């Protein structure tokens, strides 16, 4: 590959928006995915504090453990931008390593989630147990599905990279995957704040807005 191509990219086709169509499509999809997650988050918030049987969030939500898995997901976003930087710099080894690291951290995150779901099940919370279970598992489950899809995508890219087919010319392939991956990260930022940091202390309905309205009531 010629050196001159590392910064500027050839084969830029003409489009009426001046934007690459694949990248544009990705952003349109992410934009619509906001609506998808918005609806699921709204459902969780609407039914928050309305379960009539336990376990309630405070009984089972483990904030320290989830904070660790949140750190891991944030790290994976950093690895992802490094993978893109390596692609733009045509650093073949870097591409492969960073893609693998990103996928691996995604896998750790998913393992944490599997552990969490299993612990909840052991405590008696199933998707059918109460409103908390239904809305919690639906929301975090769909997020987990997004992460899983991202991991498959990353491993696919790694496969392509091993064949030496990723580089400045094909950097868009990595960039678009990165957009998706970072989006999954920002969705988690919101879920982590609402369901864990704020909602993790919710007790049964007897106490929501009861014990300390100032703490919990401000977001019901």
């Amino acid at each position, binding site marked *: 590959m010629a050196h001159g191509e590392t910064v500027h990219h050839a084969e830029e086709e003409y489009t009426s928006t*001046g934007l*690459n169509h694949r990248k544009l499509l990705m952003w349109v999809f992410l934009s619509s995915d906001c609506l998808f997650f918005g609806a699921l988050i709204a459902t969780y918030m609407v039914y928050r504090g309305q*379960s009539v049987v*336990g376990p309630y969030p405070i009984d089972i939500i483990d904030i*320290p453990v989830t904070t660790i898995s949140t750190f891991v997901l944030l790290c994976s976003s950093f690895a992802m931008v490094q993978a893109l930087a390596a692609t733009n710099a045509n650093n073949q080894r870097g591409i492969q390593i960073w893609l693998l690291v990103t996928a691996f951290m995604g896998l750790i995150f998913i393992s944490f989630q599997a552990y969490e779901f299993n612990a909840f099940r052991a405590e008696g919370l199933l998707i059918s147990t109460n409103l908390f279970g239904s809305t919690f598992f639906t929301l975090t489950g769909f997020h987990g599905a997004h992460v899983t899809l991202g991991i498959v995508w990353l491993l696919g890219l790694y496969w392509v990279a091993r064949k030496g087919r990723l580089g400045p010319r094909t950097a868009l392939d990595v960039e678009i995957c990165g957009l998706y991956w970072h989006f999954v990260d920002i969705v988690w930022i919101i879920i982590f704040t609402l369901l864990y940091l704020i909602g993790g202390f919710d007790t*049964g309905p*007897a106490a929501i807005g009861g*014990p300390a309205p100032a*703490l919990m009531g401000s977001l019901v």
Partner: protein
Amino acid sequence: MTSQPEAGHSRHPTFKQYVVVAIILFVITAVEFVIIFPDYKLGPATVPTLIILSMVKFATVIFFYMHLKFDPKLLTWIFLSGLALGTVVTFSLLFLFSSVGATPQPRDYARDNAVPYVEHGTEEDKPSSGTPPETVPETPDQSAPEPTTGDGGPGDTALLAMGQEIFTGAGGCSACHTIEGITAGLVGPDLTHIGTDASGRISGVSAEDYLTESIRNPEAFVAEGVDRAIAGLMLTALTANLSDQQVDGLVQFLLAQR
């Protein structure tokens, strides 16, 4: 090559910028954790603070990691319009399902029908709660010598009634504590048998002193081996406004929970 703007391949942040962004995200997450664990440290400001912090993280990721800051503005508008729609949908649903005008309000319904959550493994503890309320005649017995003298000694039924009133009402205790048949809070320890349990909590400290201290100064110590005895949830400020007599009433009321 066309003369188009370098769509999709505009400047990317440098390595150093990426590292700085990563550090910012880390620090914010750590701060969020510290703010809420093991207890909310900022009082009423906690929830707004958390929301603002997460919005900062959100913006940092989309503008730097997803390099919207460096890309054509159209992409930002496309994404923000979806985000805005999603937010509007969220708040509309919250509003539609909120209690405006609804009777009974959904949350009231839930509260009236809620079943306290019994954690796993507590089945074995059941026998103790199954014992008949032998204590009922016991309390009047003790109070027989000086009924309703108001001297604050054990067995003062007026005091005891006042204690119960504070516990279930203005004191707010019922929001966190369960006393079977009376209240069903699930945040703090179960106080159903606190009258007997209290004397064993700290050796050498009488039940009465232990309870007084637990109410007056809950932040000073935490009972060991007690379910849901989470430090820092029961704040001293909660009981700072209670008079000594009111605390006495609470203690008498709790001592009667055997």
